[in-house]
């Protein structure tokens, strides 16, 4: 028995969410009194993982996996699960990890629970707390099968240092055929993504038009934050779809969520409820968002935001 953590990387660098997943895996393994292994796909420099306590690092190097493929990655991790006799796999909740996780649970007939926010309440039976109904509720869920996969909500557990001195071991996996191939990747340059961000700056219809987003971008840049928006803003094409957050858009689980000119409709709140600290800037003191916020500024965004940027820069 052991715990496997898939530590996702990009351009030969681990994602922060991988350190969080590994921290979680380590704490889980300690609780279960078993070992925790990190699975690494095509990332040569694994030293940065040591701080989070893996007992062993399992390195897969394969040209066949140069490009992400949920099927090939799921097969690769399934192979490792078998060879290491691992019964629990921990994943982060990046788009790629969630993508391959569901595929993996189908392949390996495992119980899979996503959006997990805490260490298991009990190991036998294995029960975890997860969010459901788009953050309007939590469920205590039991994973029944022998093999289990859990993906954890980002920023829910945190990154916890727990240094270890693991061996790195190369492992071979069977290559599998797939007629699915990537033609092109269009990257948005330089911006922080909502999924990875610790701070998200979000704006709504109160901004009046797309030409007014300059100050939102500047505020985000000043804080190292990702930008987001409410649904009507993306529906009207003021901002790209990828920024739409809420129940029918992307979920946000950042440490800080700043909402500017957003009324706080139930569908919007549902998607951002699991963010830890919420700041609302709105000129209507009756805006429902104030009820869901930790800090509120009643004021005109066109005055408050530039002034806030100035003060943050002067820090």
């Amino acid at each position, binding site marked *: 028995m052991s715990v496997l953590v898939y530590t996702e990387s990009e351009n030969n660098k681990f994602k922060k969410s991988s350190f969080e997943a590994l921290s979680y895996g380590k704490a889980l393994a300690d609780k279960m009194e078993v070992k925790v292994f990190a699975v690494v796909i095509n990332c040569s420099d694994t030293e940065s993982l040591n701080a989070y306590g893996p007992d062993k690092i399992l390195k897969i190097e394969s040209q066949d996996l140069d490009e992400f493929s949920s099927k090939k990655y799921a097969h690769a991790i399934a192979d490792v699960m078998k060879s290491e006799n691992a019964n629990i796999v921990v994943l982060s909740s990046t788009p790629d990890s969630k993508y391959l996780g569901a595929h993996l649970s189908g392949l390996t007939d495992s119980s899979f629970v996503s959006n997990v926010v805490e260490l298991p309440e009990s190991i036998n039976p294995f029960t975890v707390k997860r969010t459901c109904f788009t953050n309007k509720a939590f469920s205590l869920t039991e994973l029944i099968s022998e093999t289990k996969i859990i993906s954890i909500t980002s920023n829910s557990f945190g990154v916890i240092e727990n240094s270890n001195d693991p061996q790195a071991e190369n492992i071979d996996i069977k290559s599998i055929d797939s*007629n699915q191939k990537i033609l092109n990747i269009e990257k948005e340059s330089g911006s922080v993504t909502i999924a990875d961000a610790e701070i998200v700056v979000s704006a709504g219809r109160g901004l009046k038009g797309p030409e007014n987003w300059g100050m939102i971008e500047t505020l985000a840049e000043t804080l190292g934050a990702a930008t987001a928006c409410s649904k009507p803003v993306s529906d009207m094409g003021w901002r790209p779809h990828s920024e739409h957050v809420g129940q029918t858009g992307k979920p946000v689980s950042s440490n800080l969520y700043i909402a500017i000119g957003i009324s706080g409709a139930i569908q919007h709140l549902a998607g951002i409820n699991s963010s830890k600290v919420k700041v609302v800037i709105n000129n209507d003191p009756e805006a429902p968002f104030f009820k869901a916020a930790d800090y509120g500024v009643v004021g005109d965004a066109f005055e408050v935001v530039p002034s806030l940027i100035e003060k943050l820069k002067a820090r």
Partner: protein
Amino acid sequence: MNILVCISNVPDTTSKINFVENDSKFDTNGIQFVINPNDEFGLTKAVWLKDSNNATVTVLTVGEQSAEATLRKCLAIGADKAIRIDCPANDAYSVAKEIESHCKQIQYDLIICGRESIDYNGGLVPGLIAGLLDYNFVTNCVNLEIEGSKATFSREMSGGTEISECQLPLVVGSQKGLVEESDLIIPNMRGIMMARQKPLDVIQSQGINAKTHDIKFNKPDAKSEVKIIKADELDKLIDLLENEAKVI
């Protein structure tokens, strides 16, 4: 071409969420059920493919009789036939297994699901179906073109868009962008009349055991009162974020 659209029947987005039976069950009392929004984008896309690729569109839900109203609405939107697999949707695995078993009897070239359902939010069923059938799979799909037996598609990924191609069969996790919000087909009177004539078959379930089980639900703790900061005292806000909340 044969298209299956898997439909999850979910509480309307404005629903208040409550639980009964000692917090072990979702309280459906007074809840309006609707087509899962992510599935609606997929269904509209499927109806478009009917015309462009001469496809037949079947909608399927795993669920109890109460879900049939939602299936009728899908027929009114333009699906050709509907299937209900008769059992409660206990967890993602049992739902996916039921769908897998149906897909082994009837070959579909394209299986469209939503990226995730807005109730249990697993985002699991489409990947599970793909894993169980070992089909190609794309989720967070924002574009899809079918030409003969080849599919070209895009998905939203961290910080960008990835464009890929593959041979059918393919399982798709759809979301907004696959078609636009303004493209969503709203059933008209003719659609609703026609839907009454279209077949809605109920098939027996395989009786699959669930692999996960929700023991107990609870709602988040009530929030503490918001702290209001004056618009001309933003230094105070920065101080609170820095030293009280410790988030900047």
